[in-house]
């Protein structure tokens, strides 16, 4: 026996007109300006895919398009792949000529800046999905340049908080001989000072050039690394600063003393890792793997993030206008979900996306920073990287 339930049900009638706004169809073209990263990696597992960054952006465009089905917006990805010798300005001009005003960029810092400045007169807005240089967020910041990639200082602070939480306060810092390695080493020095760790000694691994692979194999490395790390003052953990993939991958299990390795190898601070599955991340991992038949790594995830930032701003503003989109992303209203356990927002003073930092060992996520107890008056995410009072950025 069924009695018609609840009188009040009558309040909800389907005969009411459907008031979904009839939006004009809108197509939003988003450029992906990218220069492939070196394929010379220490581990074969880390060799970047040919379509790295583009694949992440395409996944994001797919997500945007599902939303777009309901808002009448279509997102298109325009690939602009350039070589190390190609002119960035020409590539930017070509994108602008084809009507692109929103661009995801995975380029080295100097070339990113070139692109941003070239696109400015054409009202182009850029999201940096690759370069981690703090200079792009500090003295070289630009009002039309957002950053989805975390800065070196954010990555270093994310790792440092965990090391301090573990009471591993004595660090042996080993850095490479390239300028980026020194920049990363400096980020670790700053983190140590900020959170009360001590760098007991610094060593340099000089890049003498040459290939990574040889038939001679591991025998040489096994002798080389203990020499590099012997006679060190007592330390808890070895912090490696090696952005050029020259030596850090060889450190774990080969150091003179039995100490864990962190930084560029071992426990690595990163925006994303294929092992991340908390907060619904499995869904994103599955979607990517289903389409691209490979695991989702940080650079692709950062490009996905950048595409979602453009998409979210376009959806909320119901606009394809680059100025409206940039204004919204820089406003306090902008927030985005990215499977990181909390909303991500943009730092208004330098347009950096705030984000938790994952600490990955290559198999699992060991921890996620900010760590418990690292407090901040506005957002605990601002305990990671350069904060507003110390910024050198003057947006213009």
């Amino acid at each position, binding site marked *: *026996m*069924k*009695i*018609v*339930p*609840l009188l*009040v*049900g*009558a*309040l*909800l*009638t*389907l005969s*009411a007109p*459907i*008031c*979904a706004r009839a939006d004009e169809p809108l197509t939003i073209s988003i450029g992906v300006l990218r220069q492939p990263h070196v394929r010379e990696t220490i581990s074969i597992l880390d060799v970047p895919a040919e379509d790295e960054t583009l694949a992440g952006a395409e996944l994001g465009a797919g*997500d945007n398009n*599902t*939303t777009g089905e*309901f*808002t009448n917006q279509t997102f298109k990805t325009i690939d602009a792949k350039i070589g190390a010798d190609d002119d960035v300005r020409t590539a930017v001009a070509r994108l602008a000529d084809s009507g692109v005003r929103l661009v995801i960029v995975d380029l080295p810092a100097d070339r990113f800046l070139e692109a941003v400045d070239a696109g400015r007169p054409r009202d182009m807005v850029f999201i940096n999905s690759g370069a981690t240089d703090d200079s792009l967020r500090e003295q070289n910041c630009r009002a039309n340049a957002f950053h989805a990639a975390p800065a070196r200082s954010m990555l270093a602070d994310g790792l440092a908080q965990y090391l301090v939480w573990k009471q591993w306060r004595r660090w042996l810092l080993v850095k490479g001989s390239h300028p980026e390695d020194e920049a990363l080493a400096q980020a670790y020095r700053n983190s140590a000072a900020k959170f009360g760790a001590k760098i007991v000694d610094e060593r340099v691994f000089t890049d003498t050039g040459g290939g990574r692979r040889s038939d001679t194999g591991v025998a040489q490395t096994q002798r080389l690394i203990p020499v590099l790390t012997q006679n060190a003052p007592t330390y808890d953990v070895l912090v490696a600063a090696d952005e050029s993939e020259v030596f850090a991958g060889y450190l774990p299990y080969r150091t003179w003393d039995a100490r864990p390795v962190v930084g560029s190898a071992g426990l690595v601070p990163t925006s994303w890792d294929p092992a991340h599955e908390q907060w*619904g991340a499995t*869904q994103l991992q*599955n*979607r990517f793997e289903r389409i691209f038949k490979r695991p989702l790594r940080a650079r692709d995830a950062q490009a996905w993030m950048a595409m979602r930032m453009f998409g*979210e701003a376009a*959806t*909320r503003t119901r606009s394809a206008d680059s100025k409206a989109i940039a204004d919204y992303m820089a406003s306090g209203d902008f*927030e*985005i*979900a990215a499977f990181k*356990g*909390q*909303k991500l927002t943009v730092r208004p003073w330098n347009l950096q996306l705030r984000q938790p930092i994952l600490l990955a060992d290559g198999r699992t996520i060991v921890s996620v920073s900010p760590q418990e107890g690292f407090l*901040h008056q506005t*957002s*605990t*995410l601002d305990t990671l990287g350069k904060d507003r009072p110390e910024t050198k950025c003057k947006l213009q």
Partner: protein
Amino acid sequence: MQTAMIRRASIAAITVGLASATWPALAFTAFITNEKGNSVTALDTDRLEATRTFAVGKRPRGIAVSRDGSQLYVCVGDDNAIQIYDAKSLQLTGRIASPDPEQLALSPDGARLYVANEDDNLVTVIDTLTRKPLGRIRVGVEPEGVAVSPDGKIVVSTSETTNMAHFIDPVAEKTVANVLVAPRPRYAQFTPDGSELWVSSEVGGVISIVDPIRRSVTGKISFDVPGLAKEQTQPVGIRMTNDGKTAFVALGPANRVAVIDVATKRIEKYLLVGQRVWQLALTPDDRYLLAVNGLTNDVSVIDVAARKVLKSIPVGSSPWGVAVAPQ
């Protein structure tokens, strides 16, 4: 005392037709899914203790009890199925294949089950009698919350990445409106009179109030738990008392349940519960609210009238969902 009796009488009057029999006073069974435990814990709401934990499929989250209280529907996401258990014997009686189901909701007459298939961007309509899918409706990326209007004419699905509440006509099997809400909407609930739809946004940190007729957001409720960072306040489960006057919202890692006056949208109180509180359920007599705490492996029992947490009951590993049946 008198008011309580009157309330109980009126509830019984309202709910007749939904349940096949009236229940003995205060004696209900709550079922809690243990996401990591791959089990369901049965809990006696009279004695306020767990009575039995039984094994189910992998990664159980969403759970519902059939209108007559005889069947349990459990989403076992990693088994890509909905399992059906006899609510008395706790024996498995059926299995419906369904890709990565996370949450589900029953139609008011109990004839249909609406399931969010998170990995496939679908809402599946299942006939509870034949246990066969009747249709599928395409929604946004990562559908999660499912709500049915009190008259059964509208089904709402929230998509976590598309950030929308999709209004679905379950007969025509299509979306009729898509309402943009704050990021990562995880749960939706109609007020008992159907005049408002409440949608919780886990990452946005707010409840969006949606007018189901105009199908637009008319207001937002945000939370400010003293001493906690905004990012930690992540609303998930929502429940309302039968009289539609009071709403309860689970605030996730804020470890609180907010008590909200539905009419004014004012937050009356934050109740401290266990850690990472996910879903909520009221006993049918509105006497107790059960809050499921994912990190502390327990259920907080809240005295609804007194607005007080009475006790915590240990359940299985990483509890997530909860549904209550008459005993």
